[in-house]
């Protein structure tokens, strides 16, 4: 890796670019911008398209129904979370749903909190995530 960077630094244009702090900042910024979207393909959450410039991609059309039960009884998420969070949950974003689960677990210590999403897509089969006690396994 180091030798690769050294080689990059020795190429004529890159060499002059990397010789100043501004040039190094530009290079770093561009490398980050070119590579950050690749992280999307490594994420466990296919619905999370942040920082990836995936505007209006097919995944944007995914619709998920978040559902929760506490000790087996249905729980209305709208009484605990603002509808804007429910909207994000309905797009299937794991980090938000997991945070919702953590919140319910904290408010109901010792309870069996199950939180899951049933998702439909335009380009793949429907799929469910979760449905186990999220207090024991805090990730979808």
């Amino acid at each position, binding site marked *: 890796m180091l030798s690769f960077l050294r080689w990059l630094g020795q190429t*004529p*244009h890159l*060499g002059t670019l990397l010789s100043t702090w501004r040039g190094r900042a*530009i290079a770093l910024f561009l490398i980050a911008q070119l590579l950050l979207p690749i992280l999307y393909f490594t994420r466990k959450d296919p619905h999370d398209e*942040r920082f*990836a*410039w995936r505007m209006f991609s097919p995944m944007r*059309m995914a619709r998920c129904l978040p559902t929760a039960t506490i000790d087996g009884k249905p729980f209305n998420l709208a009484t605990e979370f603002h509808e804007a969070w429910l909207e*994000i949950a309905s797009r299937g974003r794991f980090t938000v749903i997991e945070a919702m689960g953590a919140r319910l677990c904290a408010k109901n210590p010792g309870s069996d909190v199950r939180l899951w999403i049933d998702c439909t897509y335009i380009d793949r089969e429907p799929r469910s995530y979760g449905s186990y006690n999220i207090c024991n396994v805090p990730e979808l």
Partner: protein
Amino acid sequence: MAKKRDRSKKPAAAPPPVERPVKAAKPDKAIEVVPLPSEQPAFWFGYDVAWAKVWLFRVLVFGLLAIDALLQIRHAPRYGAGGFNVAQLPLLHDLGPSRVMYEVAQLVSAYLFILAAFGVATRVVVPCVTAIYAWLYFSSQLDSYQHHYLVALVLGIACFVPWQRPADATPSTPVRSWALRLILVQLAVLYLWAAISKMDPAWLDGRTLSGQITGPLRAVVDSSVGIKAAARFTIVVELALAFTVWMRPAWFIALPLGIGFHVSVLLSGLEIGLFAWLMLAMYVLVVPDRVWVRIAELRPLRGVLDRLRTDSDLVTGISVVLGSALAVALVAVACRFENALTVAVALGLVPIIIVVGRRLRGRRGGAIAGVAHLAGILVWLAVDRTTTVAVDYYRFWGGSQRRLGNAETAEVAYRKMISIAPGEGSGHYQLGRLLLKRGEEQAGLDELRKAQAIETARARAYVAEAQYLAGKGRGPEAIEKAREATYAEPDSKEANDLLTALTGQKREPGAGTPGSDDDSDQR
């Protein structure tokens, strides 16, 4: 920040000597060529732009961002609601703004964007507003669209653009800025990845686009090339823009393509706020410099703006004092945003600080600070009075608090909503329901009747009254109200169902519309 040029401090330690001389970038014919000071890549560090273009970009982009910041105020009630937050970056979970903080931050942001648009203290103002924007964006996922991310990045780069007018600048005076080039390259990166994300069978066959576009564009597409061809063409356009938008010789391709593309996005019915407008404003950079130079030379306001740059202490003093006083007076009388008066009073210090700061650095003048200050506040008023943002703010605040079970806070929100918009039925209706639930019969019914008088074609206030009366065992009165509900809105399913239930008579099932609350900001 942008003014300081980085000169290589250690030429001896620099990487191996350049094998061939770096060619200077080919500037637009309208501007003078300034030689590159040292052997730096001309692509970045020799990027010259006519002052007229920088000026227009500054005015349009910061002006749009000011309006956008104010429009975002209607989302403030989301923030901190129920004490729940998930940040973009895990470290920032606890730094998420509350409703009030968000609203105040957007008011301040809009004001600072206007100062930046006027070119006032940009070396301080732009980093400050960038920090506020980044805080609001990265500390919560509530408004986490890609365009918020783009704006955060562009603002970060904008901190390094020399926004202020060079001494004795004319419209064609060249301004050298690697940051402006970086903004164009950033756009190219965006287009590239946007195109890659669409290289998917579900996009290529038109299914995705079909589910996303409505509006006038949909009819045009359906009746011409068809949705499948439009979907494929979108990828081609995005790829073409990725390879042309940052290259001056290719602007003749990027300009019509990009403008056409973003205008079509505007017509597509996609709910992306001012993003398409912002992207169009960015294309100011892609228009050849000579166009803006020519227009700037015709600019009739030039004399006025030049006069604002006067060194006269008297003019500066009058501008700052009058600007601050007038701004506070206008907000006190006409602005309906919560906390606006407090914020306006506090911001009154800004032009004074700017003028004092200039003095301390041995510079005189600064009358433009007072004018920009007043303009910043006038933009608040203009957005407030021409949109429903202030009313929506209270409506959504009341709605979210009501749904979260905080009836007292919801009542405060609805009362404030009624105080600024007594002609809105929604506030009376929701307040009436809250009061009835709390047992304040007369006050509750009064509010419902006010709603009935305003919303003459909606059943909901009649239905609420009928339900309340029925619950109190006042059957005949309830039936009468339910009947009035069906008169007001014959298609209302809720009204028809209620009348059926109260009278016990079976009615024709219509294609009724269910009743709905309109205080959700997910409408």
